[in-house]
C-alpha cells in the first residue's frame, strides 16, 4: 500500500500550494510520534486535564431489556462532552511543536469547534472556527460556548452553509496563512496525513475499551457499534480491534430514509469520488458534484467519509448500516430514561442500531457502544422538534 493510502482510498488531492504544509505536517508527525517529551505532555493533558481514561459502563437496565450484556464507552464524559478533544489536544500540541501561532478549525455540530477552542485555550494558541451559517443557528449554544472559550466563530455563508462549506473555508484560510497556522481538522477525512493522525489520536478510545472489557469480562466483545460522520470516533474504537474476531458496525445518518435521498449515508449510498483532498465514498451526482445531505445530527450531516472506512467497507471487515432521524430520536429518549444518560444525537445513531442488533446476541453476548458525546447541545433542538414536551 502506498503511503497515505488505505487500499486505493485516501491520497492528497489538494492545490499545489498546500503540498508543502502537508509534507511539513507528515514530517512533524513522524518526529513527535517518537518523541518521549511529546508523549509525556500529551499523556498529561489526556489524563490530568481531559479526564481519561473514560469509563466503560455496564448498563444493567438496558442489558436486562435487550437480553445481552451492553457496555457504553463513555466519551461523553471526556472534557468538552465528546471524543473530539482526544484529537484536538494531540494536534494542538503538534502545532506547538511545529512553532505554529494560530489554530483554525471547521465545525458542524460545534463539538469539534468547542474541543479546538478548549485545546487552544489550554495551550495558549488563538483559535478561529469556521462554521456554516445554518449550523451557527441550529447549534447556537456551541457557537456561544466557543466564544466563551476565547475562540472566534466565523460564519460561512457559501454553498450549503453547513460542515462541508466550513471545511472549504478553513482550507482557503490555511492556504493563505501556512507559515503561522495549523489547520486542526476534526475527523479522519481530508488529505493524507490527516486521516492517519486523527485515527491515531482517537485510537486511545479502543485501546482503553479493549483493556477494560478484558478486565471485566475476560474476553473480547462480540460486537462494537459506533456512529460515522467523518468516522473519527468509529475508527478510534475500531482500530485496536480490526485484527480480532469482533464484529464492527459503523452507523451512518439515514436521515429521512435512504430512499428519500435526504440522508448522510455516504458509505451505504455513495459512490467512489474525490472530495476535500481524499478518494473515498461520496454522495455525488452523475457529474461529480457533491450532493446536499441531511441529518437531524449536525455532526453526521456530511457528503463524504474518511478513506480508511471506505477500505474497511470494501474488505467487509466493518459493516456499515444506517439509522433514520426518527430512530435516533427514539434512542435519544430511550437511553435518557433507561440509563439516565443523554446521548449526543450523533451517538444516538449508534445506540439506535444497538437496540436493533441486540436481537442477534444471546444473554452472554457482549455489545459495546461508543457513546461519542453527550446530548446537552441537542436538548433545545429536540425540545423544539417535540413541541416542548419531553
Amino acid at each position, binding site marked *: 500500500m502506498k503511503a497515505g493510502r488505505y487500499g486505493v482510498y485516501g*491520497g*492528497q*488531492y*489538494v*492545490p*499545489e*500550494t498546500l*503540498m*508543502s*504544509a502537508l*509534507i511539513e505536517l507528515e514530517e512533524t508527525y513522524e518526529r513527535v510520534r517518537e518523541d518521549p517529551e511529546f508523549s509525556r505532555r500529551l499523556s498529561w493533558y489526556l489524563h490530568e486535564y481531559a479526564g481519561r481514561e473514560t469509563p466503560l459502563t455496564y448498563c444493567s437496565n438496558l442489558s436486562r431489556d435487550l437480553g445481552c450484556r451492553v457496555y457504553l464507552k463513555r466519551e461523553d464524559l471526556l472534557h468538552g462532552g465528546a471524543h473530539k478533544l482526544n484529537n484536538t489536544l494531540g494536534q494542538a500540541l503538534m502545532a506547538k511543536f511545529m512553532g505554529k501561532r494560530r489554530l483554525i478549525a471547521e465545525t458542524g455540530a460545534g463539538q469539534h469547534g468547542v474541543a479546538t477552542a478548549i485545546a487552544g485555550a489550554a495551550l495558549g494558541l488563538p483559535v478561529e472556527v469556521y462554521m456554516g451559517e445554518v449550523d451557527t443557528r441550529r447549534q447556537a449554544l456551541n457557537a456561544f460556548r466557543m466564544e466563551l472559550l476565547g475562540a472566534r466563530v466565523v460564519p460561512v455563508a*457559501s*454553498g450549503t452553509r453547513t460542515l*462541508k*462549506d466550513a471545511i*472549504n473555508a478553513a*482550507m*482557503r484560510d490555511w*492556504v*493563505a*496563512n*501556512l*507559515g503561522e497556522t495549523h489547520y486542526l481538522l476534526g475527523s479522519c477525512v481530508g488529505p493524507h496525513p490527516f486521516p492517519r493522525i486523527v485515527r491515531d489520536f482517537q485510537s486511545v478510545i479502543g485501546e482503553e475499551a479493549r483493556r477494560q472489557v478484558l478486565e471485566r469480562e475476560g474476553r473480547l466483545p462480540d460486537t462494537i457499534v459506533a456512529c460515522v460522520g467523518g468516522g473519527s470516533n468509529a475508527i478510534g474504537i475500531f482500530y485496536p480491534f480490526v485484527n480480532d474476531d469482533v464484529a464492527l458496525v459503523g452507523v451512518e445518518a439515514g436521515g429521512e430514509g435512504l430512499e428519500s435521498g435526504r440522508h448522510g449515508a455516504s458509505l451505504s449510498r455513495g459512490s*467512489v*469520488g*474525490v*472530495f*476535500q*483532498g481524499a*478518494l473515498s465514498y*461520496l454522495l*455525488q451526482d*452523475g*457529474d*461529480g*458534484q*457533491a450532493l446536499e445531505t441531511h441529518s437531524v445530527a449536525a455532526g453526521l450531516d456530511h457528503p463524504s467519509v474518511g478513506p480508511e472506512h471506505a477500505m474497511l467497507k470494501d474488505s467487509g471487515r466493518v459493516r456499515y448500516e444506517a439509522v433514520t432521524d426518527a430512530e435516533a430520536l427514539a434512542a435519544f429518549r430511550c437511553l435518557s430514561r433507561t440509563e439516565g444518560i443523554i446521548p449526543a444525537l450523533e451517538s444516538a445513531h449508534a445506540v439506535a442500531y444497538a437496540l436493533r442488533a441486540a436481537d442477534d446476541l444471546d444473554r452472554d453476548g457482549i455489545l459495546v457502544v461508543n457513546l461519542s458525546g453527550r446530548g446537552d447541545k441537542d436538548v433545545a433542538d429536540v425540545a423544539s422538534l417535540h413541541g416542548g414536551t419531553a
Partner: protein
Amino acid sequence: MSRIDDLFARKNPVFIGFTVAGDPGIEASLRVATTMIDAGVDLLEIAIPYSDPVADGPVIERAHVRALGAGTTPDDAFALVREVRGHAPALPLVLFTYYNIIHRRGADRFFAEAAAAGADGVLIVDLPSEESGEVAPYAARHGIDRILLIAPTTSPERQHAILREASGFVYLISLEGVTGERDRLPPNLTGLVGAVREKTDLPLAVGFGVSRPEHVAAVAAAGANGVIVGSALVRLIEEHSSDETAMHEALATAITALRRGLVPDPEPDIPRRARIE
C-alpha cells in the same frame, strides 16, 4: 506545433483570461467568451463549474455557484469549448477543472471529449504531481497538454518533479492563498519566475491576484511569458448581471486596460480576428 506552443512562439508575453462555463448563464457564457477573445485575450481558460471549489476565493466561487444554478454540466462546458473553437480556430483553450469531475467521467473519456471539443490543455487544480499518474497516460493519448502549477511554497525538488511532467506552459501561482483580486502582488515575483526559469524552457504564466494594469506590468517585468487574469474579469460579470450590454463593455474595457500593462506587441497592430484566423 500545438496552438499553445504556437502562441508562445509568436508572442511574449501573452494575456490569458479566465471564465467559468455557464456564468452568468449557459448561452450568455458563450457571449462572454467571444467578447473576451475579441477584446484581446490570447488564451482562454474555461472552468468547469464545481460544487466545492476550494482553491478559489469568493468571487470565482460565486461564479461556480451561478453556473451550477443555471444548470451547467461538464457536457455544457465541452459544448462551450466547441463553440468557442468555432469562433476562434487558432486560439489556445485550456479547460480548468477540479479533479472529481474527471474522476467521475473516467479520465480516458474526459480527455477524449476535451480533445474532440477542441481544448488544447487541461489544468486540474487539485491534482498535485504525487497523484497525477492517474491521468497522465490519457492526456498523452488524446494529445492534451497538462498545465501544472507551481506555488511559492513548492520546494525546488518538487519543482523539478512537476517540470518533468508539465507541457504547454507552467502556471506559477503568485502568492500563498486562493484566487482573488489583491491590492498588490507579492514583492518576490521576479525571484519565483527566475528560479523556475532556470529549470525549464517551457513558457511561464503567472496568475492569482493579478487584477490591475500595474500588476500585469509587474508580471511582465518579472520575466513571465504570460499573465493570467481571473477574478477581476469574473467580478465584472457579477457586477453587471442585470445589464448584459454593460457587462460586455466593461469586460472589453478592462481587457484593453489590462493588456496595456504588457510590453507593446512586437507585431504591428493589425485587426485581431484577421490575425487569429
